């Protein structure tokens, strides 16, 4: 252990640190980007139908949204420094192209920070209509921010728009670098994913309330609005997800081979559900569905699928990485399918019977849908990042060439400190949310307004 700390290379702790901080940040993204839209939708309902309960829900959501945004701002700031601390060689060489998306994201972040403050302030200080209208700046700002980050990530997957001469970036085509092939599917796939996730996560809170016996207008509204949004998008995601995977066959064949643990290039390629591949290409465990992968990709069992063994060993994911990408991919698809089934159930009841479901099993599943969609987002991200290995910029720069020259001990230490700090932040964050929830429950039970506890980073009460 101590040997690893002192004498090992910085690569391993750098990868762990980046994975850890990104995995944390990505949990904050769905509510950060999509919650303003859901909140505005609720506020719109409140104004349109003169429904005080809807306005109350929107106001409470806006508080959660602001606190979450503050935490996301912190974890996002850490990430931007990590690019320099952990991957200086990549930034020095490709910053001029890779950074373009982030410049746009920086603009969007600025707009969001200001308009979230205005939105919180405005509840008591603007007319309902003016308040709603200023809030309308938030969804496009979120979209623009998501576009920026996904543009940068897409650039790592399908780099383009750059001219490299003797290892040096000599010219950049801005549009070509911002809109690389991967952006088309990464952007829509992720955008829909975060709206679905935000919908299911928020609805899951009120599914729990239903299970605990709360059945009033407040609970129904706060459950139905986000759940309906998520439910409407879930079938779209099945199509977009399918298109995304198919596009990888062309754009990143090594990643696709890892996701499907295909070893040899062949036709009649089976779809392996679960299972692990070993160094010789043999598949263990798992369920093999004959020819299905070929059919899914080329609409014919004769479609030829490129396998891992057709890439040089130092240009494809390792055995471990392939297995991780494969299982993460299967998990994502599996969770998406379960989500679609739940959605179908919901649609059936709502459309045929014109009311919300009243089965405890449905609400138990809906309560799990929040965690399930977070898991799906994480596993989708693991699939694309681990599947890209060993490249940091696909086909151009390896992760090991991008990593810092700092001693491993420094990176291990920083990683440990960050783990502790993140645990603290998570604890504070959850404590605050629980306190807010408890207060709101008390208020609703007694129908009184308690003196407001000051929300950190909120406006003065």
């Amino acid at each position, binding site marked *: 252990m101590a040997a690893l700390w002192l004498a090992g290379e910085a690569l391993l702790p750098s990868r762990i640190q980046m994975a850890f901080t990104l995995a944390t940040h990505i949990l904050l993204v769905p509510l950060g980007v999509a919650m303003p839209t859901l909140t505005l939708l609720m506020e719109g309902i409140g104004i349109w139908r003169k429904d005080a309960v809807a306005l109350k829900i929107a106001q409470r959501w806006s508080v959660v949204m602001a606190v979450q945004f*503050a935490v996301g701002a912190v974890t996002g700031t850490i990430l931007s420094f990590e*690019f*320099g601390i952990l991957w*200086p060689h990549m930034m020095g060489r490709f910053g001029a192209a890779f950074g373009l998306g982030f410049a746009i994201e*920086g603009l969007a972040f600025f707009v969001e920070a*200001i308009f979230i403050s205005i939105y919180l302030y405005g509840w008591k200080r603007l007319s309902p209509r003016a308040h709603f209208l200023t809030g309308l700046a938030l969804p496009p700002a979120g979209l623009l921010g998501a576009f920026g980050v996904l543009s940068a990530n897409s650039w790592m997957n399908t780099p383009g728009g750059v001219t490299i001469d003797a290892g040096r970036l000599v*010219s950049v085509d801005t549009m070509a670098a911002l809109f690389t092939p991967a952006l088309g599917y990464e952007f829509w796939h992720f955008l829909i994913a975060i709206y679905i996730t935000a919908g299911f996560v928020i609805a899951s809170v009120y599914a729990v309330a239903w299970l605990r016996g709360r059945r009033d207008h407040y609970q129904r509204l706060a459950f139905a609005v986000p759940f309906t949004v998520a439910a409407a998008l879930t079938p779209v995601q099945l199509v977009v997800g399918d298109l995304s995977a198919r596009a990888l066959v062309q754009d990143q064949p090594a990643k696709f081979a890892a996701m499907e643990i295909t070893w040899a290039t062949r036709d009649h390629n089976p779809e392996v559900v679960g299972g692990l591949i070993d160094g010789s290409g043999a598949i263990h465990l798992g369920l093999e569905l004959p020819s299905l992968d070929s059919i899914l990709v080329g609409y014919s069992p004769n479609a030829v699928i490129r396998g891992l063994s057709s890439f040089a060993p130092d240009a494809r994911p390792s055995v471990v990485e392939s297995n991780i990408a494969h299982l993460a991919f299967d998990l994502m698809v599996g969770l998406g399918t379960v989500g679609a089934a739940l959605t179908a159930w919901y649609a059936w009841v709502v459309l045929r019977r014109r009311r919300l479901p009243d089965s405890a099993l449905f609400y138990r599943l809906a309560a799990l849908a929040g965690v399930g969609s977070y898991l799906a987002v994480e596993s989708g991200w693991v699939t694309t990042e681990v599947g890209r290995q060993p490249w940091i910029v696909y086909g151009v720069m390896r992760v090991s060439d991008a990593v810092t020259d700092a001693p491993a001990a420094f990176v291990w230490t920083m990683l440990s400190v960050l783990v502790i700090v993140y645990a603290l932040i998570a604890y504070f964050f959850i404590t605050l949310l629980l306190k807010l929830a408890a207060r709101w429950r008390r208020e609703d039970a007694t129908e009184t307004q308690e003196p407001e506890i000051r929300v950190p980073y909120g406006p003065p009460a």
Partner: protein
Amino acid sequence: MSAVLPNLIALVLLLGITAYSTAGGVDFGAGIWDLLAGGRATGREARHLIDQAMAPVWEVNNVWLVLSIVVCWTGFPVLFQSAFASLYLLFALALVGLVLRGAFFAFRHIAEDPRTHRAADVVFGVSSILTPFFFAACLGAIASGRVGLLQPSTPVWEIWFSPMAIGFGLVSVAATAFSGAVFLVGDARRTGSSELTTYFRRRAVIAALVLIATGTAALGVIGFQNPALFRAMLTGAGLPFALVTMLATPLVAFLVWRGIYRFYRVLTVGAVGSMVFAWAFAQSPYLLPGQLTIAQAVAPQATQVLLLVVTVSLVVVVGPALGLLIYLDQRTRLVE
């Protein structure tokens, strides 16, 4: 055209750093006075005022930092790589300070047990000192000329402990304490508490004196470690800004001491901002003294154009929005 654009991008970067130093500095300074406010009972009123002053602007300030970082890596990738290759520890420490500060500022609002609350106050205060210190130390290390091109040219610890890194760090702590106290005078006046106003007036004057002392000492250190920069600050491009700092700082101290509440906050921003400008203009056209100029480090032209478009959009979109936010903030306070 081709020579103007890189300088404009460099100016955007400088403005980002300056905005963070001045606006963020006020926040850090408030944190420092929070730490020095004494125990739970003695410091209650001062802390309450600091809380009120800080909450609404916290995020917007942090955005300046993110913006500077992004402009740096997109606009001047080689500078970014060089700075982080040599200064990773300083950046990491500043970052940890930044995060602890934000987290514990939030936590002290929800901590119920008095001892936990007190501990949160202390972490918040200490990190309010460490963060500006380490960020400014990075600038000092760059100004010293010891940050090597693309990779460290000397052992990294020599860079971290260079007198100029420490000097810049100390000056920034003094400067944030100074601007924090001055702005808290304004906040105290708005609440109508003459006790708190006097309390922070005294601290603003003391901080101004400390700033003048550390600033003079730091100037000596610069003369010793990087004579060319020293000359440029006092006779070259840095001179006008150096003069503004040297005149504005004592002037603010005088105004606040005598209770003349005119232009004292604008002058404070001018004093702190000019300090950053004096260094940057004295060092220009070099980003890394003697090794890397703006023209050498700048990204290809298409990237420069995009950065300029982003900057202009920022001014067009964010300007009015920020105005509205400040208007709402002020109106609140008038109502209360």
